[in-house]
């Protein structure tokens, strides 16, 4: 019963409703993974019909089948290597001409294609009528009409696929004419390929010849590896044709082939296959909406409102569930605290596992709502408009209009989170721009950095809170954009990827689509929390715990405690030891606070003696240049776990116990009075906090999204280097100027 009877590949242009159809067919029974070795998503699901189990694979949406984008290579390799029994090509019926360009390329490859004319209702309302019988007859492939949103035509589609699987529908391979220059050369090359059995174990002979003519790098590389002689002979034929085409047409073979494909489609559609009852280029509802939403004045204002709305939506609705999770993990920590004896195991479970994983899972509601909002903007088509309006600005820095979403989600408006921000770069199809966005988005001020700023601002820049926070936001943006510019002209150098982008018609997203989309991303995040993040939490806990205090010091703290208790009156001693909270007398309360003071001193010493503390002390030699002492260093090391930890670690380092970030008044008073701290130190620390290494959850996401640990490590080193350089400059120049 677990056997898969056949594989159906869903292929087609982006925005053709392919994913909606996939969701309609497979529902929640889908599995999302990656294609081996690349970061392109692979979605699979099962559809059962007539006792058959059909495996449905959603190929990445592409406009073409060249070898120049990962998506296209993945789609092509899948068709060639896994040989699905059927390829359902989902075609936007209102947009037949462009969509058939991809269809032709599937047919050239000899794939068993059948067509689903999707969104046929939209096409009809636009005055496009399609004679499906004629279309099917002239293309030589079966054709059905569907409306993926409502599931209309689903049964007919599957029936068509089954008849292809059963071999009832014969699909003839397509050969079209590419013009009088190319055809004879292709025929010659066909012969060479076939007689040498050149790559024919993988591809049809005609296709190999065609790809050589197009100068396809992937095929030429494979060919050269298999038989360099044949490959060279093919190249010679191509070179001759190319020269001739350049002389006579001022063009090149690949362009001529594309023109001929479009010519073939135009001729095919003219033959009464498609009748336009209205002008196809007239303005539709969607264009009328665009007149307002991308208007030169109203457009940017509406965009600001939409971004602000996304924030309001996310933070308003996620506050309550985030609170519930915090309460839950607090309660869980309490239960373990009560249930286990004091010692390392307890400390590890409470401080390492529960605080670590709980801290990460606490973000889940935030991510859920953020992605619900983003999915809505994406599926409705508005995201493409944002990219369109902002591209001019972002391009200057070597980024892409679509980078804006990642920046904003990461904290472009203070209070985001870089984890969903890095994940949000998935909308970006251009590799280099995407990488630059991933690496710079963490500079934005996420919600966990804000309490650090609040603390420092309250301590040193009271009365100017709003101004300083605004300046901090500007510094983050300027830093991120300039860093992107720097990366794009050094490490990720290179021409910008062509922008050429479709503005799909506005559509109301389906509930199912939104739910699946949102859940997928949230689940990926949760899964990480359970694995990598758990491990790193424990390591960081160990760094801040071991080796603990030497026995002699611990004893002296114990003695100090004993001394306090001995000095107290018997009644007070009893009351304090009983741990009752309610009605302590004033003297008893004084005794207890003296004890707590000792505890905090012990925690401070123990932290100083831990591996993290030693790192902090060792770093002091360097960090003094930026004005940081060992206490700040430990807090920053701890901040690598999660930036939230910085404030509480500073609290421990200043013998204040664990400081609640929301009530850090005592700590800011302590800092304001502490020797070595002045406004310049605070400014230097603020700058450092904005730019230094992202928290490890973000690192894990960077590794995931770039597909390599290399970029995770790069981001840690590069960001910390920038942060350190900038804060040293601020501190040294500031000191010289007498601040």
């Amino acid at each position: 019963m677990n056997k898969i009877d056949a594989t159906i590949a869903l292929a087609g242009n982006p925005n053709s409703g392919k994913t909606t159809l996939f969701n309609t067919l497979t529902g929640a029974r889908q599995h999302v993974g990656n294609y081996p070795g690349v970061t392109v998503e692979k979605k699979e699901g099962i559809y059962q019909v007539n006792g058959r189990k059909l495996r449905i694979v959603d190929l990445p949406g592409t406009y073409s089948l060249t070898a120049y984008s990962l998506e296209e290579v993945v789609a092509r390799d899948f068709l060639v290597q896994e040989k699905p029994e059927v390829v359902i090509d989902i075609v936007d019926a209102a947009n037949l001409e462009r969509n058939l360009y991809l269809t032709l390329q599937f047919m050239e490859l000899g794939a068993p294609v059948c067509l689903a004319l999707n969104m046929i209702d939209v096409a009809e309302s636009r005055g496009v009528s399609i004679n499906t019988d004629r279309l099917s007859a002239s293309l030589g492939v079966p054709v059905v009409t569907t409306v993926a949103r409502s599931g209309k035509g689903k049964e007919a589609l599957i029936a068509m696929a089954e008849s292809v699987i059963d071999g009832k529908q014969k699909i003839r391979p397509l050969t079209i004419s590419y013009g009088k220059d190319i055809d004879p050369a292709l025929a010659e090359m066909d012969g060479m390929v076939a007689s040498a059995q050149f790559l024919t174990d993988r591809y049809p002979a005609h296709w190999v010849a065609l790809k050589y003519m197009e100068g396809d790098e992937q095929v030429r590389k494979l060919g050269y590896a298999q038989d360099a002689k044949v490959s060279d002979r093919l190249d010679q034929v191509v070179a001759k044709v190319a020269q001739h085409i350049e002389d006579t047409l001022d063009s090149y073979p690949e362009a001529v082939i594309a023109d001929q494909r479009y010519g073939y489609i135009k001729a095919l559609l003219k033959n009464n296959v498609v009748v336009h009852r209205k002008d196809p280029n007239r303005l539709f509802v969607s264009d009328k909406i665009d007149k307002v939403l991308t208007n030169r004045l109203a457009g940017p204002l509406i965009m600001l409102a939409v971004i602000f709305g996304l924030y309001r939506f996310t933070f308003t609705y996620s506050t309550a569930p985030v609170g519930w999770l915090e309460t839950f993990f607090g309660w869980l920590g309490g239960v373990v605290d009560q249930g286990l004896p004091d010692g390392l195991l307890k400390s590890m479970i409470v401080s390492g596992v529960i605080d670590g994983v709980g801290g990460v899972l606490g973000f889940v509601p935030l991510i859920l709502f953020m992605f619900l909002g983003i999915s809505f903007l994406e599926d409705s088509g508005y995201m493409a408009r944002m990219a369109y309006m902002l591209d001019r600005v972002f391009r200057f820095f070597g980024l892409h209009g679509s980078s804006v979403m990642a920046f904003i989600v990461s904290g472009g408006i203070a209070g985001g989170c870089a984890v969903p921000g890095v994940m949000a770069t998935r909308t970006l199809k251009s590799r280099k721009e995407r990488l630059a966005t991933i690496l710079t988005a963490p500079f934005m001020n996420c919600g966990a950095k804000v309490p650090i700023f609040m603390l420092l601002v309250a301590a040193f820049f009271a009365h100017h809170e709003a101004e300083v926070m605004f300046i901090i936001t500007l510094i983050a943006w300027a830093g991120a954009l300039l860093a992107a510019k720097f990366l794009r002209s050094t490490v990720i150098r290179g021409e910008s990827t062509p922008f050429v982008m479709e503005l799909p018609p506005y559509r109301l997203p389906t509930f199912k689509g939104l739910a699946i989309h949102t859940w997928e991303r949230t689940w990926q995040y949760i899964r990480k929390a359970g694995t990598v993040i758990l491990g790193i939490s424990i390591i960081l806990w160990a760094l801040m715990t071991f080796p603990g205090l030497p026995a002699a010091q611990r004893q002296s703290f114990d003695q100090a405690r004993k001394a306090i208790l001995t000095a107290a009156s018997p009644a007070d001693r009893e009351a304090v030891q009983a741990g009752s909270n309610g009605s302590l007398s004033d003297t008893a309360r004084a005794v207890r606070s003296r004890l707590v003071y000792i505890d905090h001193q012990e925690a401070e010493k123990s932290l100083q003696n831990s591996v993290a503390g030693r790192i902090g002390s060792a770093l002091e030699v360097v960090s003094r240049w930026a004005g940081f002492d060992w206490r700040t260093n430990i807090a920053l090391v701890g901040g690598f776990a999660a930036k939230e930890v910085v404030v509480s670690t500073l609290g421990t380092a200043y013998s204040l116990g664990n400081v609640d970030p929301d009530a850090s008044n005592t700590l800011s008073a302590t800092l304001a009075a502490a020797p070595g701290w002045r406004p310049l130190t605070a400014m230097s620390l603020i700058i450092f906090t904005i730019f230094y290494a992202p928290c490890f959850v973000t690192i894990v996401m960077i590794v995931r999204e770039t597909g390599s640990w290399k970029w995770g490590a790069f981001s840690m080193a590069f960001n910390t280097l920038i942060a350190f350089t900038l804060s040293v400059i601020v501190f040294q120049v500031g000191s010289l100027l007498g601040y």
Partner: protein
Amino acid sequence: MAKLPMRQMKKNQSGVISAVKATGELGRRIRDMGLVPGSEVKIQGHAPLYDPVSLRVLGFTLTLRNSEADFIVVDVDDE
């Protein structure tokens, strides 16, 4: 009829593509979207900073940077 690079076309101006001079990846992307000689295009508008440009071709809306539109030559109707 006059031949113009697409960048110089005004809003709501239409014409027929006569040549696409881009090569490499840009050329490929442009052709993938149906911007080939013989296709009718109509400029729909510009982004707030006057770049990119949005246009209508084959019944859908496409955007290009001005630097990319430079490679496309259009036979425009006389005004």
